């Protein structure tokens, strides 16, 4: 477990360093990026260089960046002249709402599909559906849903981030590809588990088919699925950026896109490092979850 934590820290450090290298490699002058459309005189330039400590050697700036990141200070936005943490924090809530509701919906959908589509024909329909869902760009799913449910049927608002009604379509859009992949993994896991001897034992004890499936086979199938939690998070966060654009929702996606187009590197960096941080934390939690799901691991 300690080793896992150490590895996680190293990965985080490497992620922060890679992101910082990207910042150094970014084209254009940092001073230009900070000035933006503002007044540009030699005096202002000198002030900026002093204020942002741009006259220090790159190594010192890098160590300073790490030190501050360690304390949760991700720097200041060039463009908005506000702390990055504030910029991101203010937009985090809508994105987290979207990602978590989509995550829950996707997982529930996958569980239901993996258990209910055991008959050969149902399984065939379901696996074709999964293939289509996995291969469809999420923004196409969003645009189709938008076209049918918002423009044709007028059931949901076309854009915006206010209220529950505006959350339904984006969450479904994001949940469908997730459900597609998870169902495949769970189904394979259940298939493999049903071949194990303990299933024969369970049946011999007179357990019903449903109970065998849910209480024994599914539990085994969960293990490989839990490994995917980091991937799931990546899909949800990356997908949220696109889905927010499709549905015109406020959130991290808008912040990131604005930052990328205006070369506001501290914000881009912070979003990327933040997402790596959450990924590492989730993967460590997943390792803990193994212990809960699989009693065999507790003993070793």
């Amino acid at each position, binding site marked *: 477990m300690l080793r896992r934590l150490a*590895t996680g820290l*190293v*990965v*985080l450090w*490497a*992620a922060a360093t*890679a*992101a910082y290298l*990207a910042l150094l*490699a*970014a*084209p254009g002058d940092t001073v230009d990026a900070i000035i933006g459309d503002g007044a540009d005189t030699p005096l202002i330039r000198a002030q900026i260089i002093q204020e942002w400590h741009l006259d220090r050697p790159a190594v010192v700036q890098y160590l300073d960046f790490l030190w501050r990141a360690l304390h949760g200070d991700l720097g200041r936005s060039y463009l908005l002249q506000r702390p990055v943490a504030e910029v991101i924090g203010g937009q985090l809530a809508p994105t987290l709402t979207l990602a978590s509701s989509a995550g829950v919906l996707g997982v529930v959908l996958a569980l239901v599909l993996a258990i209910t589509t*055991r*008959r*050969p024909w149902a*399984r*065939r329909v379901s696996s074709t559906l999964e*293939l*289509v869902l*996995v*291969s*469809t*760009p*999420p*923004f*196409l799913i969003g*645009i*189709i849903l*938008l*076209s049918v449910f918002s*423009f044709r049927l007028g059931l949901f608002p*076309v854009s915006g981030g206010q209220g529950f009604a505006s959350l339904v379509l984006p969450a479904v859009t994001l949940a469908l590809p997730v459900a597609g992949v998870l169902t495949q993994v769970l189904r394979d896991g259940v*298939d493999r588990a*049903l*071949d194990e001897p303990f299933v*024969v034992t369970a*049946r*011999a004890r007179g357990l019903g088919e449903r109970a065998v499936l849910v209480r024994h086979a599914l539990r085994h199938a969960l293990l490989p699925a839990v490994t995917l939690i*980091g991937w799931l*998070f*990546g*899909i949800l*966060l*990356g997908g949220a*950026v*696109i889905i927010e*654009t499709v549905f015109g929702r406020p959130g991290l996606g808008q912040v*990131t*896109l604005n*930052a*990328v187009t205006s070369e506001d*590197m501290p914000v*881009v*960096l912070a*979003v*990327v490092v933040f*997402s*790596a941080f959450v*990924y*590492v934390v989730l993967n460590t939690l997943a390792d803990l979850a193994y212990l809960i799901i699989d009693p065999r691991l507790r003993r070793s």
Partner: protein
Amino acid sequence: MTIALDRPLPVRIRRPRGVGVALAGAFLAFAVAAAALPGLFAGDPLAADPRHVLEAPSAAHWFGTDQLGRDVFDRVVHGARHSLTIGIAATLVAAGLGVLLGLLAGLSHKYADEALSRGFDALAAFPLLLLALLFVAVAGPGTMGLIVAIGIATLPHYARVVRSQTFVVRQAGYVTQAVAFGDSRPRLVLRHVLPNVIGPIPVLAVIGLGEAILAAAGLSFLGMGPQPPSPEWGAMLSEGRGYLSIAWWTSILPGVVVTLVVISLTVVGRRLHRRFEGRTA
């Protein structure tokens, strides 16, 4: 065993996969042909016709026309060049760098291997799209930016596989023998190790190509790809989004084509995977 009869058989169902794979292959061949010689299949993708704006699909315009009266089918066919080029080039970058770094990690000293492996972990720790956005911010939007961004972001897939394969091959008898025969190091790597670790890479690349095309379409949709009026698939969807209430075809039909390409790649890739499974070092 009467118990076994009343439950679904655990045996995998054999799908009539010949038909699906053939269809997928034919569609991919068409897509590649369209990318290579778009003029053969479609007219000018930039020819605007203000008299026929946002017309529904018809015999004259199979996919309808867009807000400038341009034929959507022509644009989709010409868009194949942009989208497939980015996808294929990004996959080549990823596979090439991945094989190189994977070999390096697998063959080098414990500490260098550890450093490289953590590097792969760090790259894999970023969501693909966000990492690609970071690289686009550095390399700038456009075709080259997307290729570099997606190529680097997907490199760990290949590097990890090659690394673990290299570990296996390193121990193999023929390598020991080659060492005993006094083969030089470069010869050892090129003649004996590389050919035996590279086996799974082409199949991985076919499946990875689908992922790269999806990522490229996504980034173009966000405006990070080839700039308008270039007919790129993701960018077409983004333009069409604004006219969704009156003309669904300008965005949905290009999207369906992207989906079909990715599905075909997945179907072909899975078939190849099953075929070559177990045939590694």
